[in-house]
């Protein structure tokens, strides 16, 4: 069953949903990266919660006009309008009052969502025929999705990607260095607004599949996941789109295997799994890599301290230091240095003196800047330079 779902063999509707979700996931991942890089991730949460009153009102208006109120385009239009109003409120709050953006986000998010829930309750009590579908907008519901709905979602996703293709450079510039961007003539508020419009578009398009409560996860988790794997913004954007697309594809396929599995939460769980894997395993920024790096650094520190202690004839008590020195064949079990150990210890002591001399020399600032108390001086100076230093220190007390 699962294999069938993953291979799109579960029938027309499931296939439609899965492909639609993958497209949406990719578009959301890419859009979300810019939001993440601009450090405005939470704005997306406010925007998505602000869609709820719009959905409810659009339903009520469509019913009042004599329709049955389930037209997806109508509901999405309603959600877009109320998201825009929410965004406008947030901007007005931050611009005209002393409220910081986080406070404005909290205020707008809760008020709009609360209002939306009230409207939903009203709709329930009205008992208008087919209102049941509306709850699907909270957590996403793909059962009974029509071909036209899927096309709406796909076109929306493609439109978002097209706008990003055009706006990517200004958006990156504004995210990295808004002052420079402004001096270059980039209209920073307008680029920010465009970014928000993209977020709104993704939210509105994704309402049906993941629901408004979880859409923020689709925007942000792929971006932070991708950040683990790359130090280049362009790559982060593309990886984020890939992670978002894969998580959405898997989530939608799995949720199609059983009748009542909600699509949105399962997509988010897959997304979170990718995030966890990246957090642990990514080279460079991952947790395991960081632990390994720290271990190696610690070993170097202990080694250096041990050598200096040997050179000065001090006894070494630190168990890790003893272990490292013995494993390297520099010290015997009884704490006495081997020949090799004595030579390296003398060299370490000698390097200390050389570093001290080097760091007194203003002209050698670039080399001195490399000093970390650990590295051998030959890693920053040539043999000639070392000889010159030695000449200034005086004759070595021991041969090296």
């Amino acid at each position, binding site marked *: 069953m699962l294999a069938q779902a993953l291979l799109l063999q579960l029938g027309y509707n499931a296939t439609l949903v899965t492909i639609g979700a993958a497209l949406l996931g990719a578009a959301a991942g890419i859009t979300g990266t810019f939001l993440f890089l601009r450090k405005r991730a939470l704005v997306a949460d406010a925007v998505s919660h602000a869609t709820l009153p719009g959905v409810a009102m659009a339903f009520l208006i469509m019913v009042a006009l004599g329709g049955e109120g389930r037209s997806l385009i109508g509901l999405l239009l309603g959600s877009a309008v109320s998201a825009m109003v929410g965004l406008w409120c947030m901007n007005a709050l931050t611009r005209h009052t002393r409220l910081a953006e986080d406070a404005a986000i909290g205020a707008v998010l809760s008020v709009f969502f609360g209002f939306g829930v009230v409207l939903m309750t009203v709709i329930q009590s009205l008992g208008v025929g087919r209102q049941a579908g509306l709850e699907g907008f909270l957590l996403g519901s793909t059962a009974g999705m029509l071909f036209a709905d899927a096309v709406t979602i796909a076109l929306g996703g493609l439109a978002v990607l097209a706008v990003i293709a055009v706006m990517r450079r200004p958006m990156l*510039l504004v995210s990295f260095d808004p002052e420079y961007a402004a001096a270059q003539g980039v209209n920073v508020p307008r680029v920010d607004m465009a970014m928000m419009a993209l977020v709104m578009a993704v939210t509105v398009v994704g309402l049906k599949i993941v629901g408004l409560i979880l859409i923020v996860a689709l925007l942000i988790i792929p971006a932070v996941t991708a950040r683990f794997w790359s*130090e280049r913004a362009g790559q982060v954007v593309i990886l984020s789109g890939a992670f978002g697309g894969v998580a959405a594809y898997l989530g939608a396929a799995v949720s199609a295997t059983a009748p009542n599995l909600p699509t949105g939460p399962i997509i988010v769980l897959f997304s979170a799994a990718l995030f966890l894997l990246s957090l642990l395993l990514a080279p460079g920024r991952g947790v395991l890599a960081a632990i390994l790096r720290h271990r190696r650094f610690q070993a170097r520190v202990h080694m250096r301290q041990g050598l200096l202690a040997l050179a000065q004839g001090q006894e070494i008590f630190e168990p890790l230091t003893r272990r490292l020195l013995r494993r390297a064949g520099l010290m015997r079990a009884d704490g006495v240095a081997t020949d090799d150990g004595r030579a390296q210890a003398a060299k370490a002591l000698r390097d200390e003196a050389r570093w001290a001399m080097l760091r007194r020399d203003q002209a050698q600032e670039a080399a001195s800047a490399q000093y970390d108390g650990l590295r051998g001086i030959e890693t920053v100076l040539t043999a000639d330079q070392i000889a010159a230093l030695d000449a200034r220190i005086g004759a070595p007390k021991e041969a090296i």
Partner: protein
Amino acid sequence: MDIALVSRDGKKITEPGGQDSPLAIRGLTVSYGEKPAVFSVDMTVEAGKMTAIIGPNGAGKSTLLKAALGVVPAVSGRVQVFGKPIARQRGRIAYVPQRASVDWDFPTRVIDVVLMGLYREVGLLGRLRGRHVKQAEACLDRVGMKDFAHRQIGQLSGGQQQRVFLARALAQGADLYVLDEPFAGVDAATEKAIIDVLKALRAEGKTVVVVHHDLATVAGYFDNVFLINTRKVAEGTVAEAFTADTLHDAYGGRLATAQIAQVAG
């Protein structure tokens, strides 16, 4: 009276050679809240020279330039760049912001930052090609950072980061270079690298404006100074405007008389 042509002290904005001033500011007022940070300032930058903007902390040095370039909004005033409104001259201005203004953990490499200087030239949809990368590498070479092209920017020291910002400005191939505190908190090697590049730019006939805080190096580095303490205090060549009197006016009690005598010689 056409204020675009004659400033209050009667000095002509239009240069004798007919070339318009690279940066002419008239009556610029900038305010954060209701306390003006810069009040009704006129400034005329001389073409082909290096000008230092000097004043005590909070005197509005950076704010003046940011407002002139449209980075922060001005309450009033007008700005002309090479005799035209700034909107039509963006390509001729290269701005080097303060290092602290960006997040250095941003996922970008040194070369990518320099390539940002070419975004205007490349356009929204144009591809960054090999020649653009070569151009960016040449700019990195000028500031002595070529070997760092593929490093993540967070791995650089403060001085190296500042040099990368300067390389990005060089990549623009501008005529007017505006730098905000480029020497703040950088090592001596960087300071020398930056001042050498700026002097080379001047030798090419470019104009350089620098927000500067180190009074001791003013006379050695710059041709002209502009003293500001919310209002304009003095403007002119180092000999004319960088004197014990003008420094006393700008800094008030914040500089001891002995210090003033030392730097203004």
